[in-house]
């Protein structure tokens, strides 16, 4: 197996001899990942009823429209002729004001004003999110003044500075905060009453995730299983009204700390809402049980049904692992490599080493500016006697399993390495998930176990 959810394939280089020019197989070239600008756009596009209007050139819109649309369908017609060329340029999402050189010199007010006049009349848009592109931010158009003048009562928010080369996690937090500032009530609108199910919000579940839909669904399911009502998934699919009620929750659950810690602190400051930060995203049975036991205790829910379900899932998992193990001794000792944020690396390494007894040989952190869980990861690796794995070139070792983006998996293939690639990050190679997948929670753990077992060589 060479990548997630695919049948076995034989790979061959186009020119027959691969390439030796690849600078580094890990991740994107030279640290080129989506940055804060994209994080802002995805936080806002991940909000149902909101439309991001980029104040900038069209070149900044295509990727964001394409990715937002592939992660969250909002329409099924992809015919470019169905969308006005002006602003949408043949795509269904993320319109832009198509600024050009003259606008940079003279200011882009005229084009922004024209666009706002159009979008004001679009009833399907509940919130217009005007975001400056990196270039437009330098000329200092007064977005708030222009928007106020042209949108009247139509709800809007503006983000004047998209950030320059700061990581996507930071941008997601900026977008999330802008949503709360624009829509959140000054105080809780419907405080919890006796008899109500405790309400929680989910933070740090970004649109820019390999298994976005499945992740949100599994986290919602587990909360419900604990008797908790999920109010708002901030920037992760909730609607405008959910954001308005975000202060009503009794607990904010931070799933991916690097994407939600700042929002949790801000909501605590604004509404006094307590928050629970997962110890890295809940990957694996133990981490899931631990996190939701804590969450249920803090929020006033009951984790027993979840623990019962987890027990059944453990049994199912055990039966498959046991069968394989009795034949081959696997998966114990299988070397693996992984790519991800520090918290993702910590979560998956904890699970793979503790539950499956795999051995980390190369771990590659991305978004290093967001280093929550970095210390824990180091500590874990120290305990495992595997400190050298952090930052190690996977070409200098022989991982049998690689948990990474489609890009990294492809590059390792290009180097002629034999391994099983499991996509845990975007971009993908192109597999379409009709059935939502996740690596979080109970279902995610079973999924991960399934993929590991299918990826083993024996």
């Amino acid at each position, binding site marked *: 197996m060479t990548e997630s959810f695919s049948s076995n394939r034989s790979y*061959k*280089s186009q020119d027959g001899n691969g390439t030796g020019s690849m600078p580094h197989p890990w991740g994107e070239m030279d640290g080129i990942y989506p940055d804060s600008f994209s994080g802002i756009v995805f936080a806002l596009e991940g909000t149902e009823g909101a439309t991001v209007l980029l104040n900038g050139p069209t070149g900044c819109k295509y990727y964001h429209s394409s990715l937002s649309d592939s992660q969250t369908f909002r329409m099924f017609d992809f015919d470019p002729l169905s969308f006005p060329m002006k602003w949408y340029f043949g795509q269904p999402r993320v319109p832009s004001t198509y600024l050009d050189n*003259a606008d940079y*010199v*003279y200011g882009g007010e005229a084009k922004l004003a024209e666009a706002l006049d159009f979008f004001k009349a679009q009833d399907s848009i509940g919130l217009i999110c005007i975001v400056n592109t990196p270039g437009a931010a330098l000329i200092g158009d007064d977005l708030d003044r222009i928007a106020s003048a042209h949108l009247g009562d139509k709800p809007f928010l503006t983000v004047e500075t998209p950030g320059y080369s700061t990581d996507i996690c930071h941008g997601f937090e900026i977008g999330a905060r802008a949503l709360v500032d624009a829509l959140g009530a000054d105080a809780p609108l419907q405080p919890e009453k006796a008899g109500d199910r405790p309400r929680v919000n989910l933070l740090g579940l970004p649109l820019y995730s390999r298994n976005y839909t499945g992740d949100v669904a599994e986290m919602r399911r587990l909360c419900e299983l604990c008797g908790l009502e999920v109010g708002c998934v901030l920037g992760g699919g909730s609607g405008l009204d959910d954001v308005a009620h975000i202060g009503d929750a009794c607990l904010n659950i931070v799933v991916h700390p690097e994407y939600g810690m700042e929002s949790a602190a801000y909501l605590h400051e604004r509404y006094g809402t307590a928050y629970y930060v997962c110890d890295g995203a809940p990957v694996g049975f133990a981490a899931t049980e631990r996190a939701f036991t804590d969450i249920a205790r803090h929020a006033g829910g009951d984790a027993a049904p979840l623990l019962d379900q987890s027990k059944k899932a453990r049994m199912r998992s055990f039966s498959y692992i046991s069968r394989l193990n009795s034949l081959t001794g696997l998966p114990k000792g299988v070397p693996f490599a992984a790519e991800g944020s520090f918290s993702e690396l910590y979560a998956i390494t904890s699970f793979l080493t503790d539950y499956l007894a795999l051995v980390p040989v190369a771990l590659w952190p991305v978004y290093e500016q967001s280093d929550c869980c970095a210390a824990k990861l180091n500590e874990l690796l120290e305990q495992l006697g595997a400190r050298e794995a952090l930052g190690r070139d996977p070409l200098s070792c022989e991982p049998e399993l690689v948990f990474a983006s*489609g890009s990294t998996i*492809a590059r390792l293939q290009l180097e002629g390495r034999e391994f099983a690639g499991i996509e845990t990050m975007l971009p993908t*190679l192109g597999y379409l998930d009709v059935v939502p997948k996740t690596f979080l929670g109970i279902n995610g753990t079973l999924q991960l176990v399934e993929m590991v077992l299918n990826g083993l060589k024996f």
Partner: protein
Amino acid sequence: MNRLAVYGKGGIGKSTISANLSAALSEAGRHVLQVGCDPKHDSTKLLLKGKRLTCVLDYLRDTLPGDYRLGDVLEEGFAGVGCVEAGGPKPGVGCAGRGIISTFEMLEQFRLSDAYDTILYDVLGDVVCGGFAVPIRREYADTILIVTSGEFMALYAANNILRGVRTYDGAEGKRIAGLVCNCRNVTDEIERVERFAAAVGLPIFATVPRSNSFAEAEGANMTVMEHGQDGELIELFRDMAKRLAEGAPLHPANPLSDEELESVVLDSAAPHAGTDGASCGSVELQSEGTCDPDPTSQETTAEAEFGDSIDLTDPNRYLSKTVARGDPLHGCAFNGAIATALHLTDAVVLAHAPTSCANLSLQAFTSSGRRRLFERGALLPASLAPNFACTHMDEHDMVFGGTGTLIDAVRAQQQKGPRAIIVVSSCPAGIIGDDVDRVLDLSTPECPVLALKTDGNMTGDYLQGQLSASLAIARAFIKHDLPKQEKTVNIFAEKMVVTNTQANFDTVAGFLERMGVRVVSRFLYQATTEQLANFTSAQLCLPAYTDYTASLLGQLFSEEFGMELFDRGFPIGYDETVEWLRAVGAAFGESETAERIISEQEQTYRAQIDALRPSLAGKKLMVVSYNCELDWILRTALDLDMEIVRVGLLDYSQDVGFRTRIEADLPVVENYAREARGDEIAALAPDVLLTNYASPLGDSVPVADTIPMCPDVGFGSAITLARRWAQLLKTNAKGSWKDDGILFEQSFL
């Protein structure tokens, strides 16, 4: 001295001194151009008897590139001085610095430096950002004069200008002729300027006395030189001009720290001296005004002189269709240039950009490679692992400039030993005015460095970026006039981001191989610098397409490299493939081989047509497409005896005009309106609707199929489609999943 930049604090008198100096230089026999680089756009007013020019920036905004005429923005003033005004935005909006950059780019395109032996740049005040520093970049100004008075803020500005020069020249460069003290009658003025001059190691090039003659001349809308009333001032400017023309000694920039400046100017913390009436009677008192936005309202006296000889519409201009028409830009030149340059596989492409810009380009470039790997297990090195790097411009670079970051990044890449480094600049780099050309100094014979100053979308759209990169790379790497090798071709104008490019190349290369013809180089698709170097050794250049972009590239190869061009694109469908093979066979004396290939295929094609005709004869075909070359499908439809009821061509930035070799009358509508589709479908009742993207409108048609933007080449291109139509007409199956669309609408919309 050939290129003089006159800098100084706003309101200090630069424009008046510049205009008089231009007049004096002209009187001394120089052919002088004065360029006003101030949004106030009144630098040349006194040379033009008070007339205001159409500003370059207004002109660029309001005029299509193909209509640019130098005479619209250039006029001849007193003593034959050429006059140009950059103009700029209203205070508080936009980016005036970016405006200076745009102006200089346009003047470069007009090759004004070839037309004048002396250019004087009159530049606004302080060096506040990269844009205003453009004139002191080495390629623009060889000599710098700094105008100041004894006022602290004027000297503060002078010191800042020295800092700007130091940034570009370092400690060794010598370009400053000295200070011009334009007296404002400040207490202790001369002594202050002298102390400053001594501290920074510069001479006082001239001292211009405070005089009512300036105001009197200005009242008559003239320079002092033209007014002719004050002999002393006239002699002063003549002397300045003479010394500059003869080559005044030049000095390095040695700016002071702020503390040193205060100490020197204020002479041991003496109180800031007041002025005696500030600007009254001083030399820069020109009124504010606005540019005339209507270029047609201006006289074009210079056009007759310059318009034909140095014009933007010369053959060196390669404009994308969108840029040429002034349409909204689709994508950015930055992205297009990167997509092109990454196909030079032994070079490194360095994006001078924030990470996000580089990521957008990287994802666009690599997505097709990932998809090909996923779909069919194909490993395409250039698409999966391009040699791509980024300077990761950050907030600090935005404020303080990113040129240093860029130079460091180029040096770091050089350590990796690429055969070339190609730098491509983003919007932010262009707006803050980074001096991207400085990387050219890092070029070595082993590793040339190219600077593609796309500045994001400021130079145009995606296609413009592709064209610009193609030009730069061709000119940098293709060697002229190599001996021709027998039976060799180049391939050019292949599409870069579609998934069948390699497969189409393989098909064509297979035909060529059977005729004993070898491909020297592909421009530009997975090629090396060595392959490009041998480009002119090929006998013939074969275009993959014959669209607008291909025609411009063909023009480049033909006119600059003397290459012979083949006039057909890669063949799509039976007829085109037959014709293509015969033409290529004839070109290389391989007609017999070509006929052999054709005869092998003809029987197959005819048999396929005969088999499909019973199902499709008489069926109505309607095509609505962006593609302008549709013979491959239309010919097969006619061979099948189908009735073509409409060929609607949508406007498309990459192509121009419907092209056909079919002699039969075809119901073609160019610039087809998308709104017309529904009514036309109802009126024409097609059996088969072909569009580039499936649309709900297709639900009312028996067969709605998609036509690829870039079809597979070869004999069978259309047969595959026709076979599907026949099958679908037979089964009349639509897929009941479509019935569930209502569920989607209820849940999601």
